[in-house]
């Protein structure tokens, strides 16, 4: 029984990782950037939510919408201001810029909101019992929301015009441009979409963990990236799978071994998977042409 509830816990946090990982994977696929600032958007989303609820006294649904909008806009803005000028520079300069943006977001929020943690209410209180077992509503909601988003996203990427443009740009942006695809818009859209997903993740995170602070995004972001790499960068089902694997292993380690070792186990799994399958579980392997 404890085992089952730990699995469910794992699915819950795993779903949150997965939502963040989806954005990571999309952004990486399209600009080949390990976007360190992506995780910090979770923090921004959480603070916007908190601000809307407790400072402006807005309704939860409105705060959520505002949070998603702000994060999407911020994602686009960051890309335009900080990453776009470096599109033709060495990749590592881009990486350092991303680290810089991450520092900036964290420290700005410490300035504005102070380093003290803030509390947020759970929008989905209560428990339901399924087959005799008790589950928190928020757990069910979290898992359900991420499954729906994951399916919706896969359909979008496969079938819509924008989805096809995204795939084309991530395959080869020069050729995509020649085919008449607006590369800038596609990249902007990807950042907006990825950041929007992170905002959703931050809402779900706040509901389950209720406490937020300026540096909350960095470890969450890294684990989400680990999830994306584990599942296979560029693969949306991979990001989902990676997130869930990490969530479950983390929660089982916390329950049965030691909560302090959870991070080590997460990275241990990543190392083992990468050494066996360097392109991740569902990733395509790319062979350099000689």
């Amino acid at each position, binding site marked *: 029984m404890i085992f089952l509830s730990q699995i469910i816990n794992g699915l819950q946090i795993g779903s949150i990782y997965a939502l963040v990982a989806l954005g990571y994977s999309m952004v990486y696929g399209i600009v080949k950037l390990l976007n360190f600032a992506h995780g910090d958007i979770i923090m921004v989303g959480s603070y916007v939510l908190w601000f809307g609820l407790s400072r402006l006294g807005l309704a939860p649904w409105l705060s959520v919408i505002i949070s998603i909008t702000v994060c999407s806009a911020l994602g686009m803005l960051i890309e335009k201001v900080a990453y776009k000028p470096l599109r033709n520079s060495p990749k590592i300069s881009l990486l*350092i810029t991303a680290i*810089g943006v991450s520092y900036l977001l964290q*420290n700005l929020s410490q*300035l504005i909101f102070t380093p003290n943690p803030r509390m947020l209410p759970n929008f989905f209180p209560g428990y339901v019992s399924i087959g005799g077992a008790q589950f928190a509503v928020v757990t069910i909601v979290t898992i359900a929301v991420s499954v729906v988003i994951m399916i919706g996203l896969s359909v979008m990427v496969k079938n819509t015009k924008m989805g096809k443009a995204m795939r084309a740009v991530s395959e080869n942006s020069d050729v995509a441009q020649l085919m008449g695809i607006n590369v800038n818009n596609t990249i902007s859209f990807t950042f907006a979409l990825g950041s929007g997903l992170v905002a959703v993740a931050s809402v779900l995170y706040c509901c389950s963990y209720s406490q937020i602070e300026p540096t909350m995004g960095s470890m969450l972001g890294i684990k989400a990236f680990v999830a994306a790499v584990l599942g296979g960068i560029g693969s949306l089902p991979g990001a989902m799978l990676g997130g869930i694997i990490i969530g479950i292993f983390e929660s089982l380690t916390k329950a049965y071994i030691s909560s*302090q070792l959870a991070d*080590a186990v997460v990275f241990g799994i990543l*190392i083992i998977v990468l050494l066996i399958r360097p392109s991740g579980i569902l990733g395509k392997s790319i062979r350099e042409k000689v």
Partner: protein
Amino acid sequence: MDRIKEKIGKTRYTYILNTLATILLFAVIYALINFGVLNRYQSLLLIPIGFNIILAVSLNLTAGYLGQLPLGHAGFMSVGGYASALFTLAVDLPPAVEFPLAILIAALSAAVFGVLIGLPALRLKGDYLAIITLGFGEIIRVIITNLKFTGGAYGLKGIEKHTTVTWVFICVTLTLFIVQTLMESRHGRAILSIREDEIASEASGISTTFYKVLAFTVSAALAGVAGALYAHYLSILDPNNFGFMKSTEILVMVVLGGLGSTFGSIVAAVVLTLLPEWLRSFSEYRMVVYALVLILVMIYRPSGLCGKYEFSLDRIISGEDEGLKKIKAIFHRKKSGKEEVGE
């Protein structure tokens, strides 16, 4: 000058020149401290500047020269720090014997970890290598946090304060000497060739696996030395100070200075150690400013402050130095500009 060079041979000339310059630099630093030009606080800053130089220069060996991007440098630093601290806590020898031994132990233990981690990790490339080394770094941190003899999450306290400006100066000099002589040998060229094109390097008969692990290990060992200096400077080791934030901090120095330029790494290590100090008057804004500086430098100088420029005393004296020529050109332009205005 050229006549002297001819008489004693070019290489010997360079050696003598560099040795003299090193001694002179050391004398100047000592004079500045002893005559009170640098106050106690400022002279203590020389120590973090020193170990940051070692960290940046050693990371530049892998990130800049080998062209592989690791994000776990802080892990090697912590291995060196803990190994040396546990040693000095356990034995009771005179500092002049104890500390060099501790530094040696730090370098060796970090090197062992370098080999153990490098062998599997270096099979990956690019961002995957970054993330896997980040993983190893975090695992080291978590393990240290969970071990009894390392003091666990409370850290290791009461480490003797052996680190002095002199020791830092010696270690920095040795680091620069090792990196420099390594890079100017067949081994160094092999390392560079891997950065340029791994497949062509193999085809030229270079064992790329061996040289990748070699560069990674030397880099790790030097990070261990920095860890030893750090431990015996602060006298306390907290595992949380060796997280991936520390690793990115070191990487930032290297890239900001210019990947593949030891000189750039030194400049960036000095600047980035001092920058937060200069920004003290901004108090709470300083980290925001630090982040902005970082972003702006990358946008306007994507290849770093110094690009791939390397410093050579010999070139400067003989006036062949490109950096010097550029600076001269700037002054010259200004001067001639003024004259034109005057006319």
